[in-house]
């Protein structure tokens, strides 16, 4: 699992700007996996605990078969929840966040396909730093970049679970045109 726990600066790393011209990255980092791993563990443990309790007390809901229905339901929900988090974990291990002098970029590869989304810094309208309780405990956060007016539009990009989010944000903020701030 090759992930970086801290943002690293790679002044000479090769990259490409929005117009395709090669640029060097200012900050290049990967999301940390800790919150997702913790959530995954929580879902599995909670699911197994409820399932175990139901199996130990088969007449908890009256007929054994009624308890069996609920136990099956718990299995389904646990598998779906764990599957979702496992996939998120996999995507996070393949994700890279890059800040170049002119753009912010999120890129990941999944099943031999590569996805890359980039927003030009000059077009950013706002920067947002969010920290959930879990993210605060781990010293990470989510930095959102918005170039449009709608949070689900293509003009919206997030660096999720990024280590040292203050540094990431200030790195972009320094490059913003004056009127944006």
């Amino acid at each position, binding site marked *: 699992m090759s992930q970086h726990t801290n943002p690293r600066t790679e002044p000479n790393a090769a990259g490409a700007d929005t117009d395709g011209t090669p640029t060097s990255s200012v900050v290049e980092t990967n999301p940390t996996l800790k919150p997702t791993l913790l959530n995954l563990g929580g879902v599995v443990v909670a699911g197994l605990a409820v399932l175990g309790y139901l199996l130990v007390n088969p007449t908890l809901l*009256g*007929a*054994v*078969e*009624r308890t*069996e*229905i*609920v*136990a*099956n*339901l718990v*299995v*389904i*929900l646990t598998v*779906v929840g764990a*599957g*979702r988090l496992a*996939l998120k974990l996999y995507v996070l291990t393949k994700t890279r966040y890059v800040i170049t002098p002119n753009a912010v970029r999120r890129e990941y590869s999944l099943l031999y396909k590569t*996805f890359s989304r980039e927003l030009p810094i000059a077009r950013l309208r706002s920067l947002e730093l969010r920290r959930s309780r879990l993210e605060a405990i781990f010293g990470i956060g989510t930095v959102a970049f918005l170039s449009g007016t*709608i949070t*689900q*539009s293509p003009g919206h990009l997030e660096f999720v679970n990024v280590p040292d989010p203050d540094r990431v944000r200030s790195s972009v903020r320094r490059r913003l045109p004056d009127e944006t701030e």
Partner: protein
Amino acid sequence: MATGRVGRATAGLFDAVFRPSRFVRAPNAASRTSVRSALGRVRGLAVVFFVNVVVYATPLTLSGFGVAVDTDAPAWFVPVAEATLGRPDAAWWLLAGIAQNSAFLTVISALTLVTYHVALVVTRSSDGFLLTLHTVVYSVSAYLAGIFTVLVFLSRAPGFVTARDLVLNLQVRFISVMYDSFGVPPSQRVFTLGDPVSASQLSSNETAVLAVLCALVLYFAYSMYLGARLNHGAGVTSAALSLLAVGLSPVLYVAALLVYSIGGTLV
């Protein structure tokens, strides 16, 4: 990110199971759009609903479920069918069967749409009818159609008699409560409550299918809740009230049927 119809359908199915929030969220959600843009979105959502209803109803029709069309294709349909589909009678049988099998789903969807949107408007959480339409179309197309598919499976599969009786008993119990509420005399009741079905006779397969049914109901409720929260920006209370309104849809549906068919009045 998925491209192509198959890719989008696969991604949609994946989202429906693993990421309901992404599945029901309206992309580029804007409460105020031009009439032309709004009409374009309504058309797009209508296509999504229509395609999903056909996908749901076609296998049922082909297996002979719920088809009560014995007549030949009408005269106006024959030249159209001959030019496009080939055999007019078979095409008429198929289309009429699909229409019949999707009628209940369509009626419940319309009722859900109305009650859900009214609840959002009353709680002053509505950000526009289009967002409600988007939520209902996607939720109904995936989860409600899934619920109906499981119910149809239970009604036809040979090894699921107890599960079928249990579900039927639950529905009859609900209708009996409605009969009592509307003071329908026993002589006019179409459904009568039989002996309670013991869950202890359920096989392992039956408990598994009933668990899937419960999961689909939970998914449906959760997707409607998410639709209110994400698309309309509703608060927890408003979203819960909207969900409650959706839960009341079957009550309204049965009440309307009783009033229409027997002339019952609420007592």
